[in-house]
């Protein structure tokens, strides 16, 4: 979502770990309350980021904003470390876990052998699908969504038709923080909370570029291509070259693809004028 507004969501997953770490305070807080509290913190953080950083960078090039968000990511990571320590934490907010027996039984009947699918993965898929649908609807059909896309297109033009840049930015960072919170909770439940999650957030960039910025269907298709592609590549070619190809496959694919189609799959054609 940050991308849609011409910004880069690099600091976001760090926000997420930031949020999900909140449970491990001196006292215990009920999970639902903690999540709500974290969402509130995200909004506060969005407000602060807008006030302290982005307000001063209006009209700058995307690459400057990108570097600023990297700086922000470092700052938040340091802050989170100082507040909660850098060790890996277990996270349990009550999402179902373990192997789904039902699916194993059903697929066992269909194919003669069962599929082992973690119940958490099923939930994650469901939640992700719901989030995507909600975000698409928000961006396409609401007033704020349209304003957001206008800001992404051109800061000055958006301001001249009366859109408040500040409100949109606070809103976008809040939404991004919320999405990151959900992603962080799911990832944290699966593999523990730690601050090296920021490297995973980086992988969102080739996905977006492959699909094309400004296009939500593009992001989904790009995600599917890269997600499926890197697993297949690892499976077929990986053993021949020593494995661990997942580290770079997404980037190299995006690089090669962009050489032939710089705007990505569904992006708008880039027109440059002197």
């Amino acid at each position, binding site marked *: 979502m940050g991308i849609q507004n011409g910004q880069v969501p690099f600091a976001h997953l760090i926000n997420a770990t930031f949020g999900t770490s909140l449970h491990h305070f001196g006292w215990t807080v009920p999970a639902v309350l903690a999540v709500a509290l974290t969402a509130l913190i995200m909004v506060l953080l969005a407000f602060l980021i807008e006030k302290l950083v982005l307000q001063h960078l209006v009209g700058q090039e995307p690459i*400057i904003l990108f570097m*600023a968000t990297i700086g922000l990511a*470092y*700052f938040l990571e340091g802050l989170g470390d100082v507040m909660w320590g850098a060790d890996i934490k277990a996270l349990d907010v009550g999402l179902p876990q373990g192997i789904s027996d039902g699916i194993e039984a059903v697929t066992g009947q269909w194919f003669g052998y069962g599929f082992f699918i973690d119940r958490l993965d099923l939930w994650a898929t469901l939640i992700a699908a719901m989030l995507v649908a909600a975000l698409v609807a928000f961006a396409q059909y609401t007033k704020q969504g349209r304003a957001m896309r206008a800001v992404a297109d051109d800061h000055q033009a958006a301001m001249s038709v009366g859109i408040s840049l500040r409100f949109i930015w606070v809103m976008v960072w809040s939404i991004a923080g919320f999405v990151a919170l959900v992603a962080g909770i799911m990832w944290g439940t699966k593999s523990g909370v730690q601050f090296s999650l920021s490297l995973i957030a*980086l992988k969102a*960039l080739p996905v977006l570029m492959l699909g094309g910025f400004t296009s939500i269907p593009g992001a989904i298709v790009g995600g599917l291509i890269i997600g499926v592609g890197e697993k297949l590549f690892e499976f077929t070619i990986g053993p021949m070259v020593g494995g661990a190809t997942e*580290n*770079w496959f997404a980037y190299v694919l995006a*690089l090669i693809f962009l050489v032939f189609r710089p705007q990505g799959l569904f992006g708008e054609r880039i027109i440059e004028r*002197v």
Partner: protein
Amino acid sequence: MIYREAGDFKTSYRDDSQTFPIRLDRWGYYAIMAVAFGIIPFVINDYWANAVLVPFLIYAIAALGLNVLTGYAGQVSLGTGGFMAVGAYAVYKLMTSFPDVSIVIHILLAGGITAGVGVLFGLPSLRIKGFYLAVATLAAQFFLVWLFNKVPWFYNYSASGQITSPTRTVFDQAVTGPAATAPAKYLICLVFAFALAWLARNLTRGSLGRKWMAIRDMDIAAEIIGVNPLRAKLSAFAVSSFFIGIAGALLFAVYLGAAEVGEAFGINKSFLVLFMIIIGGLGSIFGSFAGAAFLVLLPVLLKNFLVGNMGWPTDLAAHIELMIVGALIVTFLIVEPHGLARLWRLAKDKLRLWPFPH
């Protein structure tokens, strides 16, 4: 009078276009060079060499390289760590394959090999621009690190997957390996840093540098006035990678001695060098040195102060350092996008008019 052009007459174009047009600057430069070459090698000890001066000089070379690409030619790269790894592994393979050839030649060759790899990964820059290119260079970073991790030929099939630099000498003084002394390490880095800074300064103010800057300011407009974007961009990638490769070779062979690719040349190194040129100043030779000095000294000072004086745990100091660096990046981007170099220039301009500013 101090710090004035007045009385400093220039009678040729050559004098007029020199790097330090003001006499006091020139003397200051000669004095610093005299101290760096003539005094420091005799008083340097292991702590100063290993904690401060050697890493400063090596990172200054890397920052110079990235500054050529990002500051002068406007092509943002996040692949610095990967290119440094190329330099390090190239020098390792050369050192072990041809033990009789001088290490200086090996380091230069490693720079050349890195330049070749840099041009290869620079090819997409003709189609991809700005932010897209930054992400595309991440491909170089992750792919190269993976390559050096997975292909045993690069680390000579050693069991640990590490590369260890053997002892090599220059003028009968060991500069690499465990026997190397602090002055020898310092001097070889200083010679390379000096020569490369001189080269960078003269490249960037010549016709090549003007082409790079035209491309940076607007590549379509530059193409229209007759700058060949293919040559300008690829030459920027080649020169930049040459510098970064030498920095990587020195980092491995002289400073670290032994390296494991993911740890020594990971994505964090790319960000570190990028931060150096942002804080130091994009498009400035002095800025590369200032940024490198700043980010090398900051952890040392923080550690001495927080851990040594206040007795805080080391990891807390490291986290605070992360916060400070992050906050500084954002502050510099907002307040002074041209970095320390610009502040230095402003101070000098003020000094020229002092004590009668208009």
